């Protein structure tokens, strides 16, 4: 049985592009090709979840039925005349929608590392999309449930495994429009450019850092154990090497997902915007894995702050903001997995955010104390990049190996 995992090797791209060729031609003539793209998507989804992964395929079907039921029922509740828009039904919709993900995330913890049978590749990213839809339906921003568009959005093949996380209303606009021949040519060009940049990132640079060099520096760091906290120069090497690998690997993947989306006429949002030139950690989170951090910002942080301030539960704004950061990054840490290093990674970022906010407030009060010039800007960028690399060393789990194995 043929089983194809998305973007795993160059052969996948050749197959996918050949399959999409008729769609490209139809679109180059200025028409839409929804029906054809749907067939291709279905085949590639099937190849992703067949053979040895068939149980994941079954899980995906069950998951989709659940989300369909929850969102269609909740939309019906919200769009009926004089909908009371109570907190209860909203809460239930969110709980039911995230239930499968919670089960999948916590099963290994309670079941000796065994993964759950209801899990499948991409469950997190699909859940982010569903929950986003429920929140926007509650706000009245999404006004109707359209079965076909809902399924097209939820199961959009190019981004199913790891995002970028699109938003329903944005996706719907792209899906409904008809691009002219010129517009599509332009988008296709951008898409192909992204695919090639993605090749360079993931298959060349990411390969060197992750497959060639990382195991070597890791071995050296393991051999240099014995000092204070087992710290050594090779460990510094592990930190930078892993950070570079993480960036090029995931940015490369994101470029593939964007590129194939573009070929299908959809402008999936980008995930990275030069994260290594961030001037502080707040700036960094606006540039790194953007669709995820914006999701957490819009659907968790801002709603939490809004709720607390509206009901005046806490007076002090600084306290509210800080609690919001802790909440956001703890959830993000737990979402990555229930290991000490993901949780510490979350707490570390929350702490740096809180300190950065305090520093920015201090700087605002004493504007004339601090110069701002090319030197301070370069220093800020270097400090931010190094702080981030340190957090990725925690995230990598290598410290767990170094200290406890």
């Amino acid at each position, binding site marked *: 049985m043929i089983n194809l995992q998305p973007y795993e090797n160059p052969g996948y791209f050749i197959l996918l592009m050949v399959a999409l060729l008729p769609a490209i031609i139809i679109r180059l003539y200025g028409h839409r090709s929804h029906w054809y793209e749907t067939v291709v998507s279905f085949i590639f989804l099937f190849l992703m979840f067949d053979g040895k992964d068939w149980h994941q395929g079954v899980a995906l079907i069950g998951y989709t039925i659940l989300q369909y039921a929850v969102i269609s029922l909740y939309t019906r509740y919200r769009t009926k005349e004089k909908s009371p828009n109570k907190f209860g039904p909203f809460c239930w919709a969110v709980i039911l929608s995230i239930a499968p993900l919670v089960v999948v995330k916590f099963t290994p913890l309670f079941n000796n590392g065994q993964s759950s049978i209801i899990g499948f590749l991409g469950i997190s990213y699909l859940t982010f999309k569903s929950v986003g839809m429920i*929140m*926007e339906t509650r*706000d*009245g*921003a999404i006004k109707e449930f359209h079965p076909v568009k809902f399924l097209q959005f939820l199961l959009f093949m190019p981004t199913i495994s790891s995002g970028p996380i699109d938003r329903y209303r944005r996706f719907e606009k792209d899906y409904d429009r008809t691009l002219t021949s010129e517009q599509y040519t332009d988008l296709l060009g951008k898409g192909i450019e992204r695919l090639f940049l993605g090749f360079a990132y993931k298959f060349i640079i990411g390969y060197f850092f992750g497959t060639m060099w990382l195991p070597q520096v890791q071995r050296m760091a393991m051999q240099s154990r014995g000092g204070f906290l087992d710290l050594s120069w090779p460990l510094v090497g592990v930190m930078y090497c892993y950070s570079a690998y993480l960036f090029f690997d995931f940015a490369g993947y994101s470029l593939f997902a964007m590129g194939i989306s573009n070929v299908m006429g959809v402008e999936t949002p980008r995930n990275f915007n030069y994260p290594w030139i961030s001037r502080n950690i*707040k700036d960094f989170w606006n540039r790194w894995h953007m669709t995820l951090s914006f999701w957490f*910002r*819009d659907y968790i*942080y*801002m*709603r939490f*702050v*809004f709720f607390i*301030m*509206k009901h005046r539960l806490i007076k002090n*704004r600084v306290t*509210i*903001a800080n609690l*919001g950061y802790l909440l956001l990054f703890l959830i993000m840490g737990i979402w990555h997995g229930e290991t000490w290093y993901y949780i510490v990674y979350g707490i570390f970022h929350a702490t740096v955010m809180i300190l950065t906010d305090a520093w*920015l407030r201090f700087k*605002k009060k004493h504007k004339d104390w601090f110069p701002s010039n090319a030197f301070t800007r370069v220093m800020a960028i270097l400090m931010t990049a190094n702080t981030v690399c340190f957090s990725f060393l925690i995230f990598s789990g290598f410290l767990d190996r170094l200290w406890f194995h």
Partner: protein
Amino acid sequence: MADDNTKNTVLDILSDLTGSDEVKDNLDTNLFTTGLLDSMGTVQLLLELQSQLDVNVPVSEFDRTQWDTPNKIIAKVEQMQQ
């Protein structure tokens, strides 16, 4: 003069939130790239618009790219008042 009133109220809210008169001097300042406003400030802005101008903006409708300068915010608020 209803429009002027809206404009002044929005600008007062913004200068209050950002702690700077920059927003009144240049109505096309980008509030987010300059760091004048962040998510916390955004929520405060939405709550102030609600209490002072009776304009209800749900978090879902707040797309940063459409609300990133004083001018754009004034235009949005005026549009929602009609």
